[in-house]
């Protein structure tokens, strides 16, 4: 009898374990998520909310008949942009009296789990603000509306390189929303100490300068971070083919790149803890242990938060260019659930959120860039070239690159896994001295197995 009760007790505890395994909170500072977009939370730091203009996109006859309830899920935009979002929603509801929009802001790091939970109960939010990787992942299951069809009338408004951000399985499943390309924040004191008066403009220059900087000052120059998989497309090495069926990154150029990076690592020119996500770049920069940091200019503010003195003396420059000659852009996305009960209204609202007027307003509020060409033409984004403030100047450079920027993430539903395979493969080269060619062969085989 006692044994029976004991066994039952153990079973209960085991069951609890399973629940814990299945219900853990994601406290991870998810590298993939920040890779998809690291500016959602950062945008919250903008304090001043302005009223939204009310001369929004013109309505047509069919719009007036729209009706239904829409749940709009955003990522970490409240409370900083509460006024902006509420005003925008009020404008839309005024244009469409039959539509009722409910705003629901969720923490960035919990968004995916919340979406999955709601998907399990068949109750996805009608309009969702999602990161790129997740769009591709769930679009493949038919959960999202095909925007090539539903939003064909606004497709040409967006930058061509950004429209395909949510592209997977032959169609686009998201409207690009606010975005950013990279700028370069640099520490002129470290450069001067190493004998340089300007930052590098290409990766080649960057590594040459890094050696001198490291030898003369002990600080790092160029640093390989967690997003190393982006180095391949930046060096004009595509990850997968156009049909998204085969890995295409196992090339002599990739072997050369990895061999070169391994040499830099062995020479002590970049640390492994940044690459493995153990140390955050803003901390490294604020401690003056690195000469520059290439990232979205809206993130420069993090340096100011950590050490205002370092930020004060910092300057901004255009981001480094690789052989591809183009910048990677990381838009946030607006997607519509294909199971929405108010599908027409939801699509219309998604178009409204991402129209030029609203994107321009949000760009000004949050120091981010619009993904719509008309909004990007505003004089606001042409300002800052001579600014002493690194963030303002960085935004100017980032805006200049918007026209040619392209989202470089591979157009496959398993994008996170593909990136992980490439990263792990590179880590084997760096940490376990694996031959770059062998590592790339392995990674190619793994990705091919995944895609077929």
């Amino acid at each position, binding site marked *: 009898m006692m044994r029976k009760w004991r066994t039952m007790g153990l079973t209960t505890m085991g069951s609890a374990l399973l629940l814990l395994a299945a219900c853990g*909170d994601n406290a991870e500072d998810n590298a993939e998520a920040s890779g998809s977009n690291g500016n959602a939370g950062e945008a919250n730091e903008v304090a001043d909310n302005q009223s939204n203009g009310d001369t929004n996109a013109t309505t047509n006859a069919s719009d007036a008949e729209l009706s239904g309830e829409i749940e709009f899920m955003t990522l970490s935009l409240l409370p900083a942009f509460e006024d902006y979002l509420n005003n925008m929603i009020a404008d839309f509801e005024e244009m469409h009296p039959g539509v009722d929009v409910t705003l629901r802001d969720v923490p960035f790091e919990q968004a995916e789990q919340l979406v999955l939970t709601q998907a399990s109960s068949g109750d996805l939010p009608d309009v969702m603000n999602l990161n790129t990787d997740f769009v591709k992942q769930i679009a493949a299951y*038919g959960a999202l509306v095909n925007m090539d069809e539903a939003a064909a009338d606004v497709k040409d408004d967006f930058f061509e390189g950004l429209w395909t951000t949510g592209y997977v399985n032959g169609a686009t499943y998201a409207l690009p929303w606010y975005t950013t390309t990279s700028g370069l924040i640099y520490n002129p004191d470290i450069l001067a100490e190493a004998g340089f008066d300007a930052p590098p403009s290409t990766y080649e220059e960057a590594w040459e300068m890094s050696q001198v900087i490291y030898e003369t000052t002990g600080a790092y120059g160029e640093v390989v971070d967690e997003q190393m998989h982006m180095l391949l497309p930046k060096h004009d090495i595509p990850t997968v083919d156009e049909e998204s069926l085969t890995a295409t990154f196992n090339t002599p150029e990739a072997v050369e790149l990895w061999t070169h990076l391994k040499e830099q690592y062995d020479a002590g020119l970049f640390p492994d*803890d940044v690459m493995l996500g153990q140390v955050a770049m803003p901390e490294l920069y604020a401690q003056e242990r690195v000469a520059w940091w290439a990232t979205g200019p809206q993130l420069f503010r993090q340096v100011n938060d950590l050490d205002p003195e370092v930020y004060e003396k910092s300057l901004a420059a255009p981001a480094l260019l690789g052989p591809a000659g183009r910048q990677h852009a990381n838009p946030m996305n607006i997607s519509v659930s294909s199971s929405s009960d108010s599908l027409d209204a939801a699509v219309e609202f998604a178009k409204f959120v991402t129209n030029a007027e609203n994107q321009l307003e949000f760009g000004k509020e949050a120091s981010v860039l619009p993904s719509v060409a008309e909004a990007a033409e505003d004089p606001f984004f042409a300002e800052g070239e001579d600014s002493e403030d690194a963030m303002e100047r960085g935004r100017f450079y980032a805006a200049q690159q918007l026209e040619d920027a392209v989202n470089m993430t591979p157009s496959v539903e*398993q994008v*996170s896994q593909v990136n992980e395979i490439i990263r792990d493969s590179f880590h084997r080269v760096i940490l376990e001295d694996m031959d770059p060619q062998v590592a790339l062969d392995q990674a190619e085989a793994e990705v091919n197995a995944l895609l077929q």
Partner: protein
Amino acid sequence: MYKARHAWGFLSLPMLLLLIFTFIPSVMAFGLSFTSYNPFRPLEFVGLTNYVDAFQSSLFYSSMWNTIYYWILVTPALVVLPIFVAILVNQKLKGVKLFRLVFYFPVLVSVVVTALLWKWMFAREGIINYFLSLVGFEQIGWLTGSTTVIPALAFVTIWQGFGYYMLFYLASLQGVPKDLYEAAELDGAGFWQKHFHITIPMIKPMIFFVTVISTMGAFKEFTLMLTMTGGGPLNSSTTVVLLVFKEAFERLNMGYASAISFILFAVIMLVTLVNQRLLDKNPNA
């Protein structure tokens, strides 16, 4: 009869909650382990495929090994060391309450905060490497080296769990009759003999309990790995529960994740039964 009614009255609500939030989800999860379920797809029965896939996956084996290695480092330390500390803080000494508080304090800190603190301390430029450098050691990448990462994580777990298990032993020690020690002293037993022949046998049920609880804790540890290393470098700190999390919530392979969970469940059951057999066939007797 009267007492039984009262007992059922008190037990009914927790039992109902357990039924709703533990037993029913567990049974459903077991069912899901035989499907290719993800929230965006209709259920499809796949038989034992998920279990077969798990046993053919090198990542599953390495995660299981990481879990067992972590358990081997953590559980003996958390079973044995707190006994000595509990014995020490059970003495009638001046300021003993302060010692109890100091040892228990890490338990009060949340796992995420603990993880971040130790992440900074284990960093290449962290305080641990700084002190090591003072005595001539080179910088060690505690959390970036595949051989050092699990021991580092185990150390943090021991640091945090130490006071928790000490408290269990302390409670257990209160129940050991003092006259046993007095009799042993009259027979000429020394400090170690007294504790080896009296304390350990008397608190054996608690040792078994701590072994089971710390074993389960070690096997289901997840937050620490997620926060401190994300399972890296190269999956060398990916434990089974972290793998379950990644498969379920990052790759949407809920069926496969459920199957891994039940394999882990079976392993924990087995380990617990072995523990029970080793310690005593009937620890509560």
